[in-house]
């Protein structure tokens, strides 16, 4: 095989991997949008908050350390050596569920039957609140997250791919990050689990019923409040997974919350209401922007990767606003 072709394959593979990372974020949006018609602007910040909490628990940080110091004058940064990864993940999940519960109690409960735009504004407020809360609890410094997810290239894979290249060509093997591969596997498991849950369980059916018709769901005795707590908890879990993957990759810091912006074109492409759509949309965006950078980039001076996704989204909005897999608008006359 020629090195050019191998470069192509490498780009596609890396595109697929980074696409999966986008999908992880997009999934959280889809879950909440489907169940309540709310576009949750805070999804990215939820991922950041989850990652911050996870790091805090892992390293044994004392939450609100600065606040405690300021008020009581007690200097307590650490309470010990931290806890094992699995325990920390479970602890973070408990925090996310508590958060979902509080959001329902404090915000959503009072906004039943309001316009979608009002709910959207509420989530913007929520995003800023969580951002501040995260800083206040765990500090605003950049943290490394390491719960033992494998990362870095694989020498074995580089050796294998070098042998594919033609004799004498200067190809040094393919670089695939193990972290990306792990993320892909995790995302696949997550999607299968979520699909099975929503398709075959009583609660999943109720979630889809609520997504279709709030009023009718109420009338058959489905409690919207319960459903919302569950949905936000699941979205919190997805945010945690996304936070772990992105945090391991690029550190836990404020910019983590901006991954939400990358999820937007993924959603428009895949459809706001489709879980498989979020995955396929992510893959297309990931591969698309990497390939565009490689082949079109040099013609226009590069840096296509940053805006390519948004242009694709724009085209989709013009010709297929419900996305590739979004619910068709059923209209009977």
């Amino acid at each position, binding site marked *: 095989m020629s090195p050019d072709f191998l470069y192509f394959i490498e780009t596609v593979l890396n595109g697929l991997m980074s696409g999966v990372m986008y999908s992880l974020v997009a999934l959280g949006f889809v879950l909440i949008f489907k169940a309540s018609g709310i576009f949750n602007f805070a999804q990215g910040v939820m991922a950041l908050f989850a990652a911050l909490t996870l790091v805090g628990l892992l390293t044994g940080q004392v939450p609100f350390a600065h606040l405690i110091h300021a008020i009581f004058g007690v200097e307590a940064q650490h309470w010990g050596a931290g806890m094992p990864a699995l325990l920390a993940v479970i602890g973070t999940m408990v925090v996310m569920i508590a958060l979902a519960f509080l959001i329902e109690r404090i915000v959503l409960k009072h906004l039943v039957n309001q316009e979608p735009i009002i709910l959207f504004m509420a989530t913007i407020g929520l995003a800023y609140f969580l951002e501040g809360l995260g800083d206040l609890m765990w500090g605003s410094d950049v943290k490394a997250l390491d719960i033992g997810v494998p990362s870095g290239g694989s020498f074995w894979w580089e050796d294998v791919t070098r042998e594919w290249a033609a004799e004498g060509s200067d190809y040094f093997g393919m670089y695939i990050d193990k972290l990306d591969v792990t993320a892909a596997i995790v995302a696949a498991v997550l999607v299968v689990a979520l699909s099975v849950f929503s398709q075959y369980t009583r609660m999943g059916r109720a979630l889809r019923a609520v997504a279709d018709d709030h009023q009718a769901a109420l009338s058959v005795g489905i409690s919207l409040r319960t459903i919302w707590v569950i949905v936000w908890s699941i979205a919190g879990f997805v945010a945690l997974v996304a936070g772990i993957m992105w945090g391991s990759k690029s550190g836990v810091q404020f910019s983590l919350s901006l991954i939400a912006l990358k999820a937007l074109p993924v959603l428009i492409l895949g459809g706001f209401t489709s879980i498989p759509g979020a995955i396929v949309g992510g893959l297309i965006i990931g591969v698309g922007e990497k390939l565009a950078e490689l082949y079109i980039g040099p013609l226009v001076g590069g840096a296509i990767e940053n805006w390519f996704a948004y242009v694709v989204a724009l085209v989709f909005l013009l010709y297929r606003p419900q996305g590739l897999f979004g619910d068709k608008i059923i209209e*009977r006359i």
Partner: protein
Amino acid sequence: MADTHTAETSAERALLELNNIEVIYNHVILVLKGVSLSVPKGGIVALLGANGAGKTTTLKAISNLLRAERGDVTKGSIVLKGEHVHDLSPNELVRRGCIQVMEGRHCFGHLSIEENLLTGAYTRRDGGAAIKADLEKVYSYFPRLRERRSSQAGYTSGGEQQMCAIGRALMAKPDMILLDEPSMGLAPQLVEEIFEIVRQLNANEGVTFLLAEQNTNVALKYATYGYILENGRVVLDGDAKSLRENDDVKEFYLGIGGDSHSSFRNVKSYRRRKRWLN
């Protein structure tokens, strides 16, 4: 003594009792101005009246779906099986055996017919086998639903959706179904078919019905008792037979006979009935 005895038995027999309820939307719009009615156990009671008379609001006040529309019962009492249910949420009412089938069907469009029916059993805790048995029972009443069990409800016909909505309510094992405008947008033949099933459900399963209808003719044919609402008030009530033969009802609601009157308001001879609490 004999009097108290009969009073007791009639109170026992009334599954649902509304006493002079008043409903206000958005804190300002008065929609129901004191509606009282009583639904005996095992009866089919019709709530009749024109558009905007307050039929749907009455039903929603009972099932408490009103809250989600910013409406509230501000006066009066709603008693189901001897228990005040005004403050209960809709899901608690469903658990207590009172479920509403909303106007315009409201099936879950993207769920299959069978999934729609299964959502009706959401509040039940008596196990998969019992639910499955009830699913079969619903299919035996509505064979058409069995044929379409795997199609998306959004793509089925209006009649099938109405059957689906009633079947879904049955899956909750209710004692009482509040049926809102079942005839809406359906062909006359289908309307008869649906009402026929209502009668069978009433006779065989012992389900009590309170139904709101504009189609007075059909409703009075199948109901045992009727209330006529106008502008948020009960203006007339009686058993179905006497209503069918009432001259005013004939004129205004059945379209038989009639000279110059245009509303109940203008009928001097008509004795308005009001029931006040205490």
